């Protein structure tokens, strides 16, 4: 008698794998040396790959869980209360952008556009959090730099997503997880 695995269990395990992947990518960015990205506050945003993949394969709620757990664990493992506030507000805006674009423009946009928009939303969320935490608006002076970085790194993660989706689809379908 073959082992029959419930599809909910498969999806839960997949969500756990995506969360682990997001956390590992966050940690990789944390380890990047000072010279890797010599611009203040700029990070490649690789963890968004795992959140987008979770959204595509598992749906909005598991993707929100992946993003939320990633933010909390990152703050606990290698962050601080203030960096948690920055990261959480960025992640919320980024997720809302992902949900909106995937819900209403799914057939008119590629992962490159989604990724750039999510990165820009993440930057805006972080800057808003900084403005609230430190109670002044001068932090918005960094927004142009962060938006340009969002366009560049968003394109990179979007292209990576385009490359990763076909093999990931095959691997997950082999494991019994179908595209949402």
């Amino acid at each position, binding site marked *: 008698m073959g082992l029959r695995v419930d599809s909910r269990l498969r999806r839960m395990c997949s969500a756990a794998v995506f969360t682990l992947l997001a956390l590992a990518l966050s940690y990789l960015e*944390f380890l990047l040396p*000072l010279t890797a990205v*010599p*611009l*203040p*506050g700029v990070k490649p945003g690789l963890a968004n790959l795992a959140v987008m993949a979770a959204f*595509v394969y598992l749906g909005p709620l598991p993707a929100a869980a992946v993003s939320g757990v990633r933010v909390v664990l990152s703050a606990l493992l*290698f*962050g*601080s*209360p*203030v*960096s948690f506030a*920055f990261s959480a507000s960025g992640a919320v805006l980024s997720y809302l952008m992902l949900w909106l674009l995937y819900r209403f*423009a*799914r*057939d*008119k*946009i*590629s*992962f*490159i*556009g*989604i990724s*750039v*928009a999510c990165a*820009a939303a993440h930057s805006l969320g972080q800057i808003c959090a*900084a403005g*609230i*935490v*430190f*109670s*002044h608006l*001068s*932090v*918005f*002076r960094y*927004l*142009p*730099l962060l*938006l*340009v970085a*969002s*366009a560049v790194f*968003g*394109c990179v993660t*979007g292209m990576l*997503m*385009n490359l990763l*989706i*076909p093999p990931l*689809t095959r691997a997950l379908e082999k494991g019994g997880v179908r*595209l949402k």
Partner: protein
Amino acid sequence: MNQLRLRVLDVIIIVLVLCAAAALFLCGFLPRERGETVLVESKYDGTVAEYPLAAEAEFKVTGGGYTLSVSINGGAVCVTSSGCPGHDCVKQGRISSAGECIICAPAGIAVRIIGQNTGAGTDGIAG
């Protein structure tokens, strides 16, 4: 799958983001007030130091378990070294105009410059 090919909406989004960045960048060229005072604020302890921008000073400030070295010289201020993980505060370089600030998120510290007219309304700290 539809999401794998570059679409018109992708290009529109990229152009919009870059246009927003350019517009905000140009706003940064508006005349700025000359900086007068350096405020070092901690999210945890409130204002921890205040120096005239014309002063020559080097000092250390600690927050969230990380220590930052701050240097004021030549009418500008910068964070010269930091124990924080990302070193974003060090990367921000020297600032000299009123309204500019250097933020270290892990340490919860903001180094900002105020001018004669900006001091009164902006010196609060949330929390």
